[in-house]
């Protein structure tokens, strides 16, 4: 009988690990949540990429929810995410604002030409100061900002089909229910 002790001990361990994996799927893997959710997006006013005279600011975007996608030509993950930006994200029907972060305008334009441009408008934050306000410390990141200018969802890292289904669609649905 004692010979079975190691086996049962191991099963206990498996139960623990199974729990661990399950727990991870239920809980945000961050130990610390972003403090920006449900807070107003920072005020911003940035020039449009390639059209320095034109500026887009927060006030002009109020009235309808939209996605703000932080990307750059030097960002490898953005290439991974781009196909979804071109298809799945566009099909959601909301405006897509590209946030070109700490990038060279020519490189960014070339990158969009090469990979495709899903954005309704692209604004450029060359220095990254607005990015700091948004709490950006990496690319890609995507924000969902509602009609009142409040950040309702933030995705750090590339958008994958799973994220689109499990997180973004429900977030949009919640928004729609509020009639926001």
């Amino acid at each position, binding site marked *: 009988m004692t010979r079975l002790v190691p086996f049962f001990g191991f099963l206990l361990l498996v139960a623990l690990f199974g729990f661990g994996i399950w727990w991870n799927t239920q809980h945000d*893997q*961050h*130990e*610390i*949540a*972003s*403090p920006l*959710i*449900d807070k107003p997006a920072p005020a911003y006013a940035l020039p449009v990429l390639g059209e320095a005279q034109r500026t887009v600011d927060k006030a002009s975007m109020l009235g309808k929810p939209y996605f703000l996608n932080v990307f*750059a030509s*030097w*960002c*490898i*993950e953005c290439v991974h995410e781009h196909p979804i930006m071109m298809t799945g994200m566009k099909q959601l029907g909301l405006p897509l604002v590209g946030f070109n*972060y*700490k990038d*060279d305008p020519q490189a960014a334009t070339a990158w969009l030409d090469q990979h495709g441009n899903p954005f309704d408008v692209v604004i450029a934050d060359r*220095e*990254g100061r607005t*990015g*700091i*306000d948004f*709490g*950006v*410390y*990496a*690319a890609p990141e995507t924000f969902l900002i509602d009609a009142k200018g409040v950040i309702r969802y933030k995705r*750090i*890292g*590339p958008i994958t089909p799973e994220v689109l289904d499990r997180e973004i669609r429900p977030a949009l649905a919640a928004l729609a229910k509020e009639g926001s």
Partner: protein
Amino acid sequence: MNPTRKRRLAIVISVIVAAVIAVGLIVFALQRNMNYLFTPSQVQQGQATQYPSFRLGGMVKAGSIQRAADSLKVSFIVVDADGAMPVEYTGILPDLFRDNQSVITTGRMDDGRFIASEVLAKHDENYMPKELKDAMAKAHQNRKIDDTAMKDTPQ
């Protein structure tokens, strides 16, 4: 009791005694070294009062990092969704430490401030799979690294 029996009994007893001692020591050591993690709002709600030393986790509030003029003392504010906690630390901060960074500091409360004995800046766990790619956006002055530079001395 015959000698084999006696020997077996002696072995069994000594193993049990050793096991009890081992378990006791393990429990003792565990209890003395368990570190709980709290967010600033949890600390403000008083959840951490029973722990003399604990870990405080949150994000570094942008613009709150202040260094003393003549010592290695640095103060900053750690925030989460609903709370903020001023932190003081004396020493060298980790490489990843900056505004908006996730941090976990170990230390104790003193009069409304958190005196940190250790500061760890964490990679966002979401990035672990892609950690080795460019996750930290930073201005890089020289995109074209000088390939003819001679200095390459990994330690």
